[in-house]
């Protein structure tokens, strides 16, 4: 599989392969069924003959199935890969970047291949990368965290010190506020990796920031802001209001059960659930408690949103509710009319996802999807909905409503208020146009924008 291959995966296996795999499956279960399953009384609603009705009239495969070579010889032994790697066959599932976005790779970004992910957890190796000065190779034993400023007792911690504290583990999405930025003026990109891939969702483990601040005796009568800072070349910094710091932030040393990756801030990073990923300072080495914000470049020149009238929004901490259909999406191609399970992700920086609705007609009518994953605070939520595609042109959209009652807006509405030069927080809906089956590019799935 080459690096520059264009993904043209099918939305569903072809009719033949579907039948073939189904047949193999049925043959397999038949044996079990006779021995175990049917000894219990079958449910009154379930009629086996009715269940297989859709197969009526379909040609049956008669060729005898043969064993593959892997059935005839041993596979590889344990510890061939002391740290396992993905199956080579899926090595096309990679973080990728667009070479025209940034002039070098040390202040750049890669995107997570959302179209190939399942469930709500992003594997560590596919977590998107956003560097402002490259990823430093820091040794945990040389790393320190200092808490100072408006505190009773400035303190310094080793990473081992931090691991002694009471720990918490939380699953949260992490999203660059520039996610979707390339789509403000119109559509540019035909992959959900490009349109929404500046985000991931992981389980983080660490120490509550409120504990650490109190450990140093934070002076809450005067302290209004905490200013975290990284130990890397960019010295990344942001100003975080005390309410957010004391709400649910934590200092993480692990992601998905293992130590943080260097790309994600090894040995420690800040987790600011629901807020711009730029605030989740990596390689965290210092937290200064102050009464005024820093006005760092990353909260003035960047990460502020220019409006059409020349004014600009700043301190845009929370990521708005957002959603996207990941399957079928432009990386796939429909293989003919039939039943499809439309799947996607929804998330909200302000809490839990309450509803996801899907439209097949450009937003005129909506159908509530069901959740196929746990519904967690400030985390991805998987949704799915059945769709009988009749082969005609369709316009697929998803719309999230979160527990605060906020309803995701369509793009023309967001554009009419925010203009097209915001760069950040483009959180309106996107639209996938499914080309009619009998048209020139039948089954093509295209990113279009209203």
């Amino acid at each position, binding site marked *: 599989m080459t690096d520059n291959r264009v993904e043209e995966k099918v939305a569903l296996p072809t009719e033949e392969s579907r039948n073939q795999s189904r047949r193999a499956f049925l043959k397999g279960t038949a044996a079990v069924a006779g021995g175990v399953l049917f000894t219990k009384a079958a449910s009154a609603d379930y009629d086996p003959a009715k269940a297989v009705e859709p197969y009526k009239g379909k040609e049956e495969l008669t060729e005898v199935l043969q064993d593959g070579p892997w059935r005839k010889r041993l596979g590889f032994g344990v510890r061939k890969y002391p740290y396992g790697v993905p199956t080579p066959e899926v090595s096309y599932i990679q973080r990728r970047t667009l070479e025209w976005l940034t002039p070098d790779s040390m202040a750049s970004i890669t995107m997570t291949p959302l179209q190939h992910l399942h469930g709500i957890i992003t594997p560590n190796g596919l977590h998107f990368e956003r560097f402002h000065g490259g990823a430093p190779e820091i040794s945990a034993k040389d790393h320190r965290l200092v808490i100072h400023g408006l505190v009773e007792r400035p303190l310094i911690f080793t990473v081992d*010190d931090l691991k002694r504290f009471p720990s918490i583990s939380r699953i949260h999405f992490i999203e660059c506020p520039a996610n979707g930025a390339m789509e403000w003026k119109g559509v540019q990109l035909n992959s959900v990796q490009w349109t929404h891939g500046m985000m991931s969702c992981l389980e983080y483990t660490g120490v509550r920031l409120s504990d650490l601040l109190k450990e140093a005796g934070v002076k809450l009568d005067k302290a209004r802001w905490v200013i975290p800072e990284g130990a890397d*070349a960019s010295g990344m910094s942001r100003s975080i209001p005390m309410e957010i710091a004391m709400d649910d932030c934590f200092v993480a040393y692990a992601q998905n059960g293992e130590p943080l990756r260097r790309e994600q801030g090894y040995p420690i990073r800040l987790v600011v659930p629901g807020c711009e990923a730029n605030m989740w300072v990596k390689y965290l080495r210092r937290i200064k408690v102050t009464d005024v914000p820093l006005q760092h470049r990353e909260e003035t020149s960047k990460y502020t949103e220019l409006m059409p009238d020349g004014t*600009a929004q700043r301190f845009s901490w929370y990521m708005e509710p957002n959603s996207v259909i990941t399957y079928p999406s432009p990386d796939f191609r429909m293989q003919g009319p039939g039943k499809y399970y439309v799947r996607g992700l929804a998330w909200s920086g302000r809490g839990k996802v309450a509803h996801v609705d899907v439209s097949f007609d450009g937003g005129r009518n909506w159908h509530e999807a069901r959740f196929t994953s746990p519904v967690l605070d400030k985390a991805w939520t998987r949704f799915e909905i059945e769709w009988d595609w009749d082969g005609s042109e369709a316009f697929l959209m998803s719309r999230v409503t979160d527990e605060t009652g906020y309803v995701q807006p369509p793009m023309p509405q967001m554009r009419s208020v925010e203009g097209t030069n915001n760069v950040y927080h483009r959180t309106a809906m996107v639209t996938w146009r499914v080309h009619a089956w009998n048209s020139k590019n039948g089954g093509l799935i295209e990113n279009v924008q209203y």
Partner: protein
Amino acid sequence: MFNTKKTLVAAAVAATFAAGSALAMSSNSGENTTAASEKINGKWAANYKEIIKAHDGKYLDREVMDKILGDDVNSLQAKLDPNNPYSFEVDDAIDGGPHGNAQCKVPKAFVEVWESAEKNMKADYVAKGFGTPIAESALKVWDINVDGDGNGFPKVDKPMTVEKGGTVFVQFCGMCHGEFGEGAKGYLPLAVDEDLVTVDFTDPAPMKTIGNYWPYATTIFDYNRRAMPFWSPNTPAIGDAGYYGITAYLIQANAIPLDDEGTELEDDDLATPQVIMKANKYMQNQGNFFCDHRPITHNKRCMKDCPDYLVGDGAGDIHNYRRARTLPDGTLQYNVNERLHEAAPGVGHKGF
């Protein structure tokens, strides 16, 4: 001289909102955009907490916001009033000191955040003792913050002239940012005077640089010393005096005035913290920033036969869409041809 130009912002934004509110109005007949001004001065529902709680904490629900703010929830103007529970802003004249270091806050209506933070603030805590005390003086190399009020400037014994600062800039920065800050090799320009107002959505995005966009001059020093030159940040070869020099040069290159008369830096002026603090009060764009006012839309969750303004192009047409094939100027766009099998696959997927 510093003023937040809030009135200006409010007026400008009210104009912007004509389009947005028109959309909202079609869903909410009888809504009047001028209602906002009547609501200012503390006429918001004071019992907003109870209202929010009575609705399961749904503080961004259209109905809840209508109850708290009246039916003018689309008014950004209203959100600039600190008494509005949905305002992200507090009065920066009180909290920010003489230079208006902006104080944005989490809106009071985000009841959950405030309650959770308060609980964690109040909860008793006895230190575990796992850390090690450290003196503030031991942090002098690490503590490089220079905030919007000018706290944290290092002392400089031998300040250099602005002209010398320019020489240092050309030597260490010019190859990436251009000798006059005009940008080079795809790296960011640092001094381009473009108008930030756009009339048409398809106009190219204005370039935002120090002079026309940055709200604080202190940030120039803080950021340059913290992170530049890109390949060797915070370099002793430049030193604090050098970073002051570069900062003053960039203030000059961006034509930032130092007083009401519009006096600008001369080549033989000395690059000192005082010079930066003077410029800090005259940053041309400072008053045009306002705290995040999202959410900007307050839709109801419509399921069937939704009104035209929520459908397709915003006028009910689902076939009036834009495609990725070309930019407004006609240039070919990312991988559509490949996907249509009109070109060999591969273009656009090459990363580094």
